[in-house]
């Protein structure tokens, strides 16, 4: 009864292992892509792969998938704030003359 009150739905152990294998595969992918010398696109590809990996860690290892909506909203707001800070800074830097 107490256990139910704790409201934590765990994933099965198998799920964690599969997520881990996916993370390793994505690590191999990101190293392989870095060898391709994509020049200007390389950084975006690297960040995209890192974001997929982070997503897997947050959704499964940190089991955000099973958490109440309030935690999801909180994370979303924090990431939105970070995105706005980065966007505003870049728009500032881009329109500056000299240093």
């Amino acid at each position, binding site marked *: 009864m107490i256990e139910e009150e704790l409201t934590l739905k765990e994933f099965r152990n198998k799920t964690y292992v599969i997520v881990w294998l996916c993370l390793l595969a994505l690590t191999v992918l990101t190293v392989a892509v870095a060898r391709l010398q994509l020049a200007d696109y390389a950084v975006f590809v690297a960040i995209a792969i890192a974001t997929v990996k982070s997503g897997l*860690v947050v959704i499964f290892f940190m089991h955000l998938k099973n958490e109440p909506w309030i935690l999801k909203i909180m994370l979303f707001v924090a990431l939105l704030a970070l995105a706005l800070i980065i966007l505003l800074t870049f728009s500032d830097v881009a329109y500056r003359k000299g240093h």
Partner: protein
Amino acid sequence: MNGDGSHSVKEAESTMEGSEFAAEKHRIDYTGAKMGMWIFLLTEVLFFGGLFLVYSVYRAKYSGEFHGSAAGLDRFLGTANTVILLTSSLTMALAIPLLRAGKKHLSLLSQGATIFLGIIFLANKYAEWTEHIGHGIYPDSPLMVDMSRGRIIFFSLYYVMTGLHALHVLIGVAIIAGVLFLTARGKIHRYDFIKLENTGLYWHFVDVVWIYLFPLFYLIT
């Protein structure tokens, strides 16, 4: 970890002894404790986010020098540390369902493996930094002072960002060691595992930071 303190542990133990009344009266505030941990982690997101912002702005400005400097980092060691940290996240994640399934010893083993992998990560970091310092690359060294501006910024950011991350790993290892001790003593058990849970969240967050640090420092050429 979040100030839910010894009371809830005692209550949970009395619950285990069959006193449902105690359980009704003092419920473990699992959601509250976890939300507190998440709020802390969100402040950490903005903390590291600021550093990533500085990195992005200077990388855009000095992209050539960033690429040249990154060639001096050991890509193999960086990849190995990524695999080590990802694996340690798996062992940390498994520790919770194992404990809840009543497999206390396997959970302890899993937590111990996490600590071990964290220490290996730090040992690699130590070897790496020792090598850089041996080559005369460290903040304010004669070699670094004479470098171009972009290279100085790259190595400064490298030391600050991987250094702060390594500090987080070190703190994580210390906390997991504490949690391991509490689990062994039975203070953390299958009905009250919030401390293990929150420690896991912290550890996975540290893993996420490394997931971004790895390509941004080791994989640019």
